[in-house]
């Protein structure tokens, strides 16, 4: 049976009303959040409040915190678009995957990693490459209990490979035109959950090694998050709105009167085209772990309105490791190069290099079918009979070439 739209239409309409109601409620909350935002001018006060949550028994604060002095920036401060550097190299890496399938004729998965390098300031053909990696041995596809690895594991391995490739490219291109910006599609603060991800500890270790490699190549690593849903700033504003004696885990479970807002909603009202927010760090045990491995590896972030006209703002979050965050010139270069990258695609405000690396990495349905055919042929050549499970066969039968009755006009 297909999706019966007559049964879902009413639910969709209810959802629409819910979203409208939510948006109306947010308008009032945003007014309050803006008040708190523009009142946050005293960095000493903010540092004191962060000290309070860090030093006390309070453990539930996951909001933003200013950078350590003297690199801290006023919470409500806004950075104008800086001038473009004369030259610059932008490396973008992306990945896509074919997940392992329990019911398939063979247990395997594939990760396709793409690289795209764009040279600003000089007329040069951008570099592009892809590297597909096929995994099929028991070590690769089974976890320590002999079960097929989860999709989260594949995602984690893909993320690791993306950052490793960025690190390799940054190292390879260390003699190239500076600044050398290495863009990762997604946040830099990774959480490889040990329960869902096989070999999470090793992945984490290798991820940190990759960060170190970018650091030694003096690359400006960034994580680009389009449509961020983070609430770091909103949580900080809520924290600042509390009286010192109200700062406890119970009150920090939610963001109180401004609960439901995201940082992007607030910055959409604050940041003009091309402007950036203050740099801050997220106060979290994960980030603490990163910092414990080396002060340079704590992850900071700022927001940018990457739109280049006064229409609807496009807010993106940019994650940077501390070695980048502490360098004002590096931040200015990143700010300028991301603005330039986001202006290339006209109405779509997204880094061109990321769009191209995504295009390169993408595995289409047709390509997946071709790969399936290649593997089946290889199996037959090795006198193996590729057989998929009855479940998958019957699914294929029932789903294929289904026709719907149509009224001819």
């Amino acid at each position, binding site marked *: 049976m297909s999706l019966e739209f007559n049964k879902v239409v009413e639910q969709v309409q209810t959802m629409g009303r819910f979203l409208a109601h939510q948006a109306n409620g947010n308008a009032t909350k945003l007014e309050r959040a803006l008040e708190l935002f523009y009142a946050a001018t005293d960095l000493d006060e903010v540092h004191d409040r962060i000290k309070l949550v860090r030093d006390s028994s309070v453990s539930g604060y996951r909001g933003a915190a200013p950078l350590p002095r003297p690199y801290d920036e006023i919470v409500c401060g806004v950075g104008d678009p800086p001038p473009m550097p004369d030259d610059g190299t932008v490396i973008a890496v992306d990945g896509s995957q074919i997940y392992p399938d329990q019911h398939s004729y063979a247990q395997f998965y594939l990760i396709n990693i793409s690289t795209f390098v*764009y*040279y*600003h300031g000089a*007329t*040069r*053909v*951008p570099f*592009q490459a892809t590297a597909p990696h096929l995994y099929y041995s028991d070590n690769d596809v089974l976890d320590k209990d002999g079960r097929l690895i989860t999709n989260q594991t594949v995602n984690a391995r893909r993320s690791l490979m993306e950052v490793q490739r960025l690190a390799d490219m940054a190292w390879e291109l260390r003699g190239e035109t500076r600044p050398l910006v290495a863009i990762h599609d997604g946040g830099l603060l990774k959480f490889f959950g040990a329960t869902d991800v096989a070999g999470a500890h090793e992945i984490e270790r290798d991820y940190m090694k990759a960060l170190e490699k970018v650091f030694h190549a003096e690359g400006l690593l960034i994580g680009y998050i389009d449509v961020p849903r983070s609430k770091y700033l909103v949580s900080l504003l809520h924290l600042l709105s509390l009286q010192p004696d109200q700062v406890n885990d119970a009150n920090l479970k939610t963001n109180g009167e401004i609960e439901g807002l995201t940082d992007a909603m607030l910055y959409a009202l604050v940041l003009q085209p091309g402007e950036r927010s203050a740099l801050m760090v997220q106060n979290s045990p994960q980030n603490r772990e990163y910092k414990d491995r080396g002060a340079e590896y704590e992850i900071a972030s700022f927001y940018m309105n990457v739109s280049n006209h006064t229409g609807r703002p496009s807010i993106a979050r940019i994650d940077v490791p501390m070695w980048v965050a502490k360098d004002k010139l590096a931040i200015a270069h990143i700010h300028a190069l991301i603005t*330039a990258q986001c*202006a*290339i*695609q*006209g*109405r*779509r405000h997204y880094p*061109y290099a990321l*769009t*191209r690396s995504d*295009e390169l990495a993408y595995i289409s349905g047709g390509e997946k079918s071709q790969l399936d055919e290649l593997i089946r042929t290889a199996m037959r050549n090795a006198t193996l009979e590729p057989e998929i499970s009855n479940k998958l066969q019957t699914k294929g039968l029932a789903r294929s070439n289904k026709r719907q009755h149509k009224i001819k006009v």
Partner: protein
Amino acid sequence: MSIVRENRNVVGRVLRASTTGFDCGTRGSRIDERHTFGSFVKVALNEDMSLCAIGLIYAIRIDDDPLARELVMASFVDNNTLIDQRENRLVPVEICAINVGYISNGGMFQSLPPRPPMRLSEVELMSEQEVYVFTRRFDYFRLVLNAKEVPSDDLLAAALRYASFAYPESERYEFLVRSGRRMAELLSHDLKRLSHVLALIKPQQ
């Protein structure tokens, strides 16, 4: 079987074909003077190239895609973005040709070829000598003028201008005058059309 042959003016490879014509494809970055409206091309119908279809390029299409459409909307297109789109992205170019003759064992015939070329066969420009020999007769005019969904008048005029450069300068004027006379016979029932085509091929004195 020889798949790659060097030193030839390859226009593209056949995508689809029939006895009346064929479409071939190439990469956007490779488009140049070989891909000219009205130029004469040939494609092998067998492996030893003793049988070839002769075509006239009547359309060259460059497809867009959503990314290209967005780039067009940008107020400024960076030079490197242009290079990337042209060099790196596989922008497909389709070249359409109608059949106007064929070569069989060294002889040239101005009628439809016996069969279409196979998919992925290489389409190449005819040499000056081949164009010279082929265009000494005008029987292919009728195939062009009667072709459907082809800008036949402009195509024939472009083909004649193209072919005239295969002739020595001393013969060029006479070639165009003879072509005009043959055209006048074929289009005597449609004087407006005739005068348009004649104006297009009028030799420069």
